[in-house]
């Protein structure tokens, strides 16, 4: 029984007829050869989110970003003129990883006027120019001005810093993001500077993992405990349905109708939810963000809960009705492993009560996220058994359908170009 209206075509999926309604193959998630193609066709061509502008608070600020699976480490800096730039994190002299602290395997951040290679002491400005070569007179025909860091295309949108590893990106970032994602540009992301960051190494294909966060059909059966503390509430047959789906080019979004737990009677809540006034949809007491928020809740849902934007290929931005947002990133490291990064962003807590509300939301994220991680390892195992080659998807799973189709389109386009 549909709980919300559907488009005139009778379903969200038929509203986008190019998607079809037939079963979908997940061969793209179990094939080492497809993984190699994806890296080139998608991850070396698309705009990739690497960090927030708040991570570069001053001229001279920088952070490093590992791109797992792409054998790539980047330096993202705000140079002394205030311009945000990105470089490959590699010294031009002998190829040493340039910026790291303690161990080259970990990301770092800081503030300064130059980067100094630990190996032989070469120095670079924050604009990437080589400024000092140790014992320069020992070299042969060295032209320092030609030995700067290798730049990477870097553009920002709404405070999100993106890079593009292509020699020449096909579109500027804003054009790439399109109108649907672009509409939330004015959302006050920059006020939500309090960040909780999570990292997981999962034994599943990056798309298998991402698929779980593009639909809410799985929530009542897998996250039964989320429904409430009582046996009556924990009904795996509870029918959740999202009221709005939208696709725009390679990007997708779904809006949910909120659970609005702040309106629930106490007996339907876990004691810690009632204590902290917080939980899986965030702190109940929203910060005052002032006025109307541009771009959110595009279909005007009365009990709006979350806008979940999936920015192709591997970024998800979840904007919550209670005035906070989350980003997910999925970095493939093989055909059946990936690194997951989750970041929760809040307007900074002003006191211990607000801190604990944020803490409980952050705890909740991890508790239920672990159920997804565990289960999706099982999905990968099931797919790799190869028993079934195509899978039925319902209307609530339209974005899964769109995602795999988009991945396939990009890989096909790349393969055709290579064949020419």
């Amino acid at each position: 029984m549909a709980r919300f209206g559907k488009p005139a075509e009778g379903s969200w999926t038929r509203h986008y007829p190019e998607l079809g309604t037939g079963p979908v193959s997940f061969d793209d998630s179990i094939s080492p050869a497809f993984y190699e193609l994806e890296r080139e066709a998608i991850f070396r061509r698309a705009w990739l989110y690497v960090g927030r502008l708040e991570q570069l608070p001053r001229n001279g600020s920088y952070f490093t970003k590992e791109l797992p699976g792409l054998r790539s480490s980047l330096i993202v800096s705000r140079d002394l003129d205030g311009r945000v730039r990105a470089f490959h994190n590699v010294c031009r002299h002998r190829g040493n990883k340039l910026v790291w602290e303690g161990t080259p395997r970990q990301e770092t951040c800081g503030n300064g006027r130059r980067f100094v290679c630990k190996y032989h002491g070469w120095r670079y400005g924050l604009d990437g120019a080589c400024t000092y070569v140790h014992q320069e007179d020992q070299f042969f025909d060295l032209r320092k001005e030609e030995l700067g860091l290798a730049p990477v295309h870097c553009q920002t949108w709404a405070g999100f810093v993106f890079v593009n590893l292509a020699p020449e990106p096909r579109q500027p970032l804003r054009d790439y993001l399109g109108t649907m994602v672009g509409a939330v540009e004015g959302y006050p992301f920059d006020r939500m500077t309090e960040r909780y960051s999570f990292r997981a190494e999962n034994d599943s294909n990056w798309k298998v993992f991402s698929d779980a966060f593009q639909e809410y059909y799985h929530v009542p059966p897998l996250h039964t405990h989320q429904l409430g503390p009582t046996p009556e509430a924990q009904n795996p047959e509870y029918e959740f349905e999202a009221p709005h789906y939208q696709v725009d080019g390679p990007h997708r979004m779904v809006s949910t109708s909120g659970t609005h737990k702040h309106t629930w009677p106490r007996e339907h809540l876990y004691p810690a939810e009632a204590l902290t006034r917080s939980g899986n949809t965030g702190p109940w007491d929203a910060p005052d963000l002032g006025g109307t928020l541009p771009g959110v809740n595009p279909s005007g849902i009365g009990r709006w809960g979350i806008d979940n934007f999936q920015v192709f290929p591997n970024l998800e931005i979840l904007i919550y009705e209670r005035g906070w947002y989350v980003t997910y990133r999925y970095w493939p490291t093989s055909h059946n492993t990936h690194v997951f990064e989750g970041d929760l962003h809040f307007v900074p807590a002003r006191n211990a009560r607000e801190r604990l509300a944020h803490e409980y939301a952050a705890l909740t994220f991890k508790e239920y996220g672990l159920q997804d991680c565990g289960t999706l390892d099982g999905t990968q195992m099931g797919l790799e058994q190869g028993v079934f080659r195509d899978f039925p998807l319902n209307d609530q799973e339209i974005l899964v359908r769109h995602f795999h189709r988009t991945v396939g389109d990009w890989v096909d386009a790349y393969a055709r170009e290579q064949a020419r």
Partner: protein
Amino acid sequence: MSAALLPPAFAPLESYAATWCLATEPERWAQRLRSSMEAMRTFYDAFFPRAEEAIAYCERFPLDDMPADAERLLQLLHSLLMVSYAVEVWKQPQVINSGSARIDRIREPRP
């Protein structure tokens, strides 16, 4: 008796302080996984009825300038929330159906 870790008003909770006053989520998570349900239920039952009072106490101070004993009380509240998932939701230290998965919290605001 060694010096009190918590504000005097919360002296009855001193016996939990050495174990559960932990500054970071990775420490609290590890402590939950190595604790018995019995130990966590005892801590939860002793502290939860006074949790609102403890929050009100901590709330009086700015987060970036808390007396050491109040900061430890706030850490104890963080641990209470950590333990609450085991006690209220899963009835076991581990998340149900999480397999061998781990999610590491690698950055968080302090305190």
